[in-house]
């Protein structure tokens, strides 16, 4: 049986900028930052309290299964804000919202009570959007 998720991918438009966003703004930890030959970089980060889950900040660029047309389509969709990439949780949404806003993170939705829990929405530097939730206990 499958036991765990070890890796997930977030497609980004610039890995240096994504590094700054996920590490310096969101407070994630760098797990691996390794060159893959001269033109590619394998960059993974982990949520502060979930060191076993590597989130790959995957550059959308030509190569492998990505041809030129696919890359352009992906870039357009990401910039347009098509992709909801994950749900993050925190212990205190109001404080986390204030902190991330102070660090320049852009929110699409301020903290709001929903049936599911207390939720806000923000976007990363590429255009991917995320739910930031404080779950009902």
């Amino acid at each position, binding site marked *: 049986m499958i036991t765990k998720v070890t*890796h997930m991918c977030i497609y980004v438009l610039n890995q240096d900028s994504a590094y700054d966003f996920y590490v310096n703004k969101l407070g994630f930890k760098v797990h*691996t*930052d*390794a*060159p*893959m*030959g*001269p*033109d*590619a970089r*394998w960059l993974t980060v982990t949520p502060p309290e979930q060191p076993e889950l590597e989130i*790959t900040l995957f550059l959308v660029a030509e*190569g*492998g*299964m*990505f041809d030129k047309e696919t890359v352009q389509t992906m870039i357009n969709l990401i910039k347009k804000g098509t992709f909801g990439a994950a749900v993050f949780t925190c*212990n*205190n949404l*109001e*404080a986390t919202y*204030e*902190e991330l806003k*102070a*660090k320049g993170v852009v929110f699409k939705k*301020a*903290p*709001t*009570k929903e049936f599911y829990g207390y939720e806000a929405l923000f976007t990363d530097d590429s255009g991917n959007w995320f739910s930031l939730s404080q779950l009902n206990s």
Partner: protein
Amino acid sequence: MGAEQYPKMYLYKRIVDAKLFIDKHYAERIDLSNIADEACFSKFHFIRLFREVYGKTPHNYLTQVRVENAQLLLSKNISVSEVSFLVGFDSSTSFAAIFKKHAGISPSIYQRRQLLKRALHVDKPLTAIPNCFAETFGWKKAISNS
């Protein structure tokens, strides 16, 4: 943004400001009483609210930030004694003890492991990445041929 929706927002903003102050000034001599004063709280109230939001006291949070920044510097091959000074400890002995308490290993062992990991990634990058990605994106071939 209605006041009823964010009853504690103003309160949290002051706690967040104090946290961001620690994030920025961790390497300096920080007097936590001063931070409480800046945030217009009594020291007791400040510690209680900080712990409510961040799950630890301001002092413990400051220590965590110092240790985490020490880990980054150690990974860059800066000496243990210099790192202890750069992250705000008075002596490398107390730094080593606190680091070990938080990280579970001594600063020098941590540094050795990180440098070995980095060297491995440079020397054998394919050990850092699940094979499916390396193969799908042609990196396995590119690295094998280089």
